[in-house]
């Protein structure tokens, strides 16, 4: 917060539309301190006024905390994530028991604590979401820089590569690869990450094309800098912030992709707690009255993706207020 200049606006109502930042003529003369602010500071200011964004960011923070402290909560309740409670966690027919003082959210079909498993599921979702996004952003930066800066034949080759990756539907490649080489955590991260590099690559390419005509790039070239140096030392730092922001929009997509793979049985292998897998298992039980088994993992997944998408939308709008995003 210290990086933002003192709040000279005061009047919140004028900022409901968050389109304008300074309307000096309406300010009393004494309060009129005009400061130069970078686009990033402006964006941050707009974001700070956005109540929806704050709620979404708060929700994400809570989810991260819950995921971090899952082992602590598990220890406090005395229920491990993969521990089966054959006596208390299953009814006489070996089926799940509903929410009760011992198992706050009930148990699953193997008599395991649903609350603890849902919390541990958050760890998998978040870690896969972030790691896969890092891979796709790193690849996107590499391909986008090369395509945008070198252009010509390189651009054409990378464009065809993107076409090929987009031509076979994501789930088809993903389930095929996952099956051929035995599903596992790192495989899921790798598959989801690599297959979604096309979006960041396109963003980076566009940014590079607009930056590479600037004078400082020309100056670097005049000084004798080679293409690799120009791409990574001169251009990349200028676009990295945009890349990070747009890249973060990929996190909810990666989370849903991972959950979908696990739902189809080719994602994170059991017994690791995972939302997609829990929902898949619950789909054989919920219709017989075990509603909690489906409800809680589904809610966890839904709240997570919703929070990330809402925050992403708000960030995008804050960066580009004229773009007609959802929350104008």
């Amino acid at each position, binding site marked *: 917060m210290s990086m933002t200049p003192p709040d000279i606006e005061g009047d919140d109502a004028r900022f409901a539309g968050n389109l304008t930042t300074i309307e000096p003529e309406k300010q009393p003369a004494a309060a009129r301190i005009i400061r130069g602010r970078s686009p990033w500071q402006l964006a941050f200011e707009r974001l700070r006024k956005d109540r929806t964004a704050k709620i979404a960011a708060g929700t994400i923070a809570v989810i991260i905390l819950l995921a971090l402290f899952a082992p602590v909560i598990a220890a406090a309740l005395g229920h491990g994530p993969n521990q089966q409670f054959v006596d208390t966690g299953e009814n006489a027919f070996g089926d799940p028991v509903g929410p009760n003082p011992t198992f706050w959210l009930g148990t699953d079909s193997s008599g395991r604590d649903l609350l603890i498993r849902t919390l541990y599921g958050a760890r998998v979702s978040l870690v896969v979401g972030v790691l896969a996004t890092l891979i796709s952003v790193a690849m996107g930066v590499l391909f986008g820089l090369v395509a945008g800066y070198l252009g010509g034949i390189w651009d054409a080759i990378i464009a*065809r590569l993107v*076409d*090929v990756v*987009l*031509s*076979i*539907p994501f*789930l*088809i*490649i993903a*389930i*095929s*690869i996952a*099956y*051929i*080489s035995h599903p596992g955590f790192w495989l899921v991260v790798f598959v989801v990450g690599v297959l979604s590099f096309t979006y960041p690559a396109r963003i980076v390419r566009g940014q590079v094309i607009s930056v590479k005509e600037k004078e400082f790039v020309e100056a670097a070239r005049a000084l004798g800098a080679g293409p690799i140096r120009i791409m990574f030392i001169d251009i990349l730092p200028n676009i990295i912030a945009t890349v990070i922001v747009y890249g973060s929009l990929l996190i*909810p997509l990666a989370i*849903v992709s991972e*959950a*979908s793979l696990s*739902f*189809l*049985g*080719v994602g994170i292998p059991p017994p690791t707690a995972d939302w*997609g897998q829990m*929902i*898949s298992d619950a*789909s054989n039980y*919920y*219709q017989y009255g075990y*509603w909690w088994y*489906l409800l809680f993992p*589904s809610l966890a*997944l*839904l709240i997570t*993706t*919703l929070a990330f*998408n*809402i925050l992403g*939308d708000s960030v995008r709008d804050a960066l580009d207020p004229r*773009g*007609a*995003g*959802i*929350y*104008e």
Partner: protein
Amino acid sequence: MIRFLIRRIAQAILVLWLSSVAVFLLFFVGPGPTQVARTFAGRLATAARIAQIKHELHLDEPLPVQYGHWLWNLLQGNLGYDYYNGQSVDSVVGQAIPATVSLVIGAAILWLLYGVITGIVSAVRPRTFLDRGFTTSALFFYSVPTFVLGLSLIWLLAYKLSPVTQFFPFHGYEAITANPGKWFEFLILPWLTLALVQAASYTRLTRTSMLEVLNEDYVRTARSKGMSERRVILVHALRSALTPIVTLFGLDVGTLLGGAIITEKLFGITGLGWTIVNAINIQDLPVIMGIAVLAAVFVVVANLIVDITYAFLDPRVRLS
């Protein structure tokens, strides 16, 4: 125009060829020849049968030759032989296509209508109650994973409201030629699920695109000439606002025709998506490869059609 067509079609063929190489490398080279033959043969094959298949598939020959044989068959429309079920992959795929097409086309009509209409209303009346409602629900359906929405709809409509809505069967598929009424009943929930998830992007895109176009000079001109608002919006603005929507629509329909995997699996619709999931579970490699190749064809052809349509509508596209 002719030059554009030739260049664009050549590009599409190149992409298809590269996709075929990718599929070939992924499935043939990755696991190694004996493993491939074993997977092709199914789990219970004898050693002699495996050797025979290895020979039939030219797995004992150099890689480029293997690829050549495979590609030659593909070009003749022969996707291979499904040893597991003892029939050609073409006929396995042929049986599955009508179900996927029924699902995707029905849902596409729903999501396009709903998405575009709500998008227009949102753009024309921004920040009203209706706009908030449509955009918020779009964000919701954009975020909800297909299987969560599908299971919720099944729970709500098929189980909870079953006394009221007794007509909702929700698992299975009946060909339209066999029983049109049943076909429709089986598809209601899948259509709704797929359409709601897809429509979200269309509401958002239509709204953004319309808001942009409504600020254009020619829209102001049309208004200042005294044209009715209805005509301004539905004829002048919507026409150019539709461009990005058509692109997205082409891509989405192309991709889903290769198999609406989750929806099909959820509702037991025996289309391409259901077939490929099933094939993966029983390691039925020829079917997996056949559907992957077919899906690539659908996507590339859908893209080609969209681009060519543009070139006809908008001369600027041809030059770029």
